[in-house]
């Protein structure tokens, strides 16, 4: 799989998305740490830690998702199909990948519809007034990229039948 140029490109893009997500999570972590330190020492609390933590987690989860599809990190059960003949196993893997791609595409599409409603209504976070569309952005990007990643992984597995 690793020698496939499309897979390698997708893996690189997915890695950078994951790093971006982890940067958001680390940002949220630092906000929480500073808040605890300030509260325990000088009795001062940072405003909007919840808003910022939620933004960090939304970014971390959805931007990490494509990498999990590409690298097969998602929990699955493989031993039941390990004994299938290679051709049938390839078909099973392709079908599993296509189901994943279709599901993530549906999440992206229907998520976009919901995000447009919140954008039109001008919804904002409770404390800091962060536009809710910013919380939706990682979901939309991550779901769409995950759909593509699931497809790339399925096709790459198809071309590398010897790998189980």
């Amino acid at each position, binding site marked *: 799989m690793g020698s496939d140029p499309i897979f390698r490109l997708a893996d690189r893009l997915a890695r950078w998305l994951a790093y971006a*997500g982890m940067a958001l999570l680390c940002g949220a972590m630092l906000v929480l740490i500073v808040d605890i330190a300030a509260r325990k020492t000088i009795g001062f609390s940072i405003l909007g830690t919840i808003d910022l933590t939620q933004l960090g987690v939304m970014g971390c989860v959805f931007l990490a*998702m494509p990498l999990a599809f590409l690298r097969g990190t998602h929990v699955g059960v493989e031993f039941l*199909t390990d004994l299938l003949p290679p051709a049938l196993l390839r078909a099973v893997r392709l079908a599993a990948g296509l189901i994943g791609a279709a599901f993530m595409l549906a999440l992206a599409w229907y998520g976009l519809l919901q995000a447009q409603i919140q954008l039109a209504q001008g919804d904002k976070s409770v404390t800091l007034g962060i536009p809710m569309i910013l*919380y939706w952005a990682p979901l939309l990007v991550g779901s769409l990229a995950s759909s593509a990643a699931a497809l790339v992984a399925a096709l790459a597995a198809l071309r590398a039948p010897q790998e189980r």
Partner: protein
Amino acid sequence: MEGPILGLAGFGAVLALIALRVPVGIAMGSVGALGYGLTYGWSSLAFVLGRSPFDAVFPVSLSVVPLFVMMGVFAGRTGLSQSLYNLVAAFIGHLRGGLALATIGASALFGAVCGSSIATAATIGRIALPEMRRHHYDDRLAAASVAAGGTLGVMIPPSIMFVIYGLMTENPIGKLFVAGILPGLLGVGLYMAAVRWLIWRRPAIGPAAERHSWGERLRGLRQVWQVVVLFGVVLGGMYLGWFSPTEAAAVGAFGALVLAALGGQLSRELLAKGLLETAGTTAMIFMILIGASVFNFFLDATGLTHSMIDYVRHLGWGRFEVLAALCAFYILLGCLMDSLSIVLLTIGAVYPMVRSFGFDPIWFGVLLVTLSEIGMITPPVGMNLFVLRGVAGIRLETIARGILPFIGADVLRVALIVAFPLLATWLPARMTG
């Protein structure tokens, strides 16, 4: 098709897809979406698919998941597993069966950090199995102690399983963490008793290793004391009400990074690998959460849960018949799937029934996690057994024959948790904050 029957068919379809290599979260989500569309019509499905992923990730209480994962990843990547094994082996490795006992102890400590029984079995297995083979341990004892030991950490806080159970059932996460401590320690004690019993019957299967000096033991302690302090601060802070679980998780993740930096191990490569591992594990957990969220919309629509409760009441079953049936169900399911998937797949249907029979939700959370972990080591398809086969090349039959005393220990633990619910409820009742 009637609603409840459709619900049962949905469970069957999820299991079938999982058997065909569809990731658990995707299987639950796609069956849930199709089922909901069939039940309520396709136009309302748009709302479910549009909102579920957002609502499954947005609650701030879920921020503990990636942060605790990050803590575990960085603590683990800085050589904690080897240090923990060396430490416990230095203290008890000279006993007959001592290295198997050390494997149990190190697995419990590392599993608490890592949070996954499969990862614990694989990691400790790579360290402990060569050591036990070098000392001529019987493969059955060696492999079984690794496979069984892997299941212990899930009970010992901070446990992602308890976070998920708490969020799905709206129970306090801090109390669940604390509730797992005594049953987790009981599990360690019973597994160690199983090893001692095996050695008592056949002393040759676990020869004594060399005795370590107190200097070596203290050196071992020096390698892990900082992580022990970090865990003490995280758990003690929650227990005493200094931090919320989210803040405790942030302290844990930050502390693990600081410890790696202070130990001179936080290279660019380790940071990159650690961040990507955190990202992968986090995405994996939340994918199942999102799938479960869609699937639970479908289950609610079918009315399966209420039908199950009515059916069980119609059968005239009492609390303990229900409990016995649930125990059998979860152990069976545990043979096929990992514990997180089991909890998320079933909790929407089972939890209301458990509550309707008056069981304590904290106690049931502890029982549920214990039961789902037993399946991980139950032959012929317990997942930890397969991990060991992959890691050490030991035949499945060999591991399966060695694991039976440990399953016996688990059954005894379940019986004790059922007979003495205080094991799970006494500590949480004494929490402050």
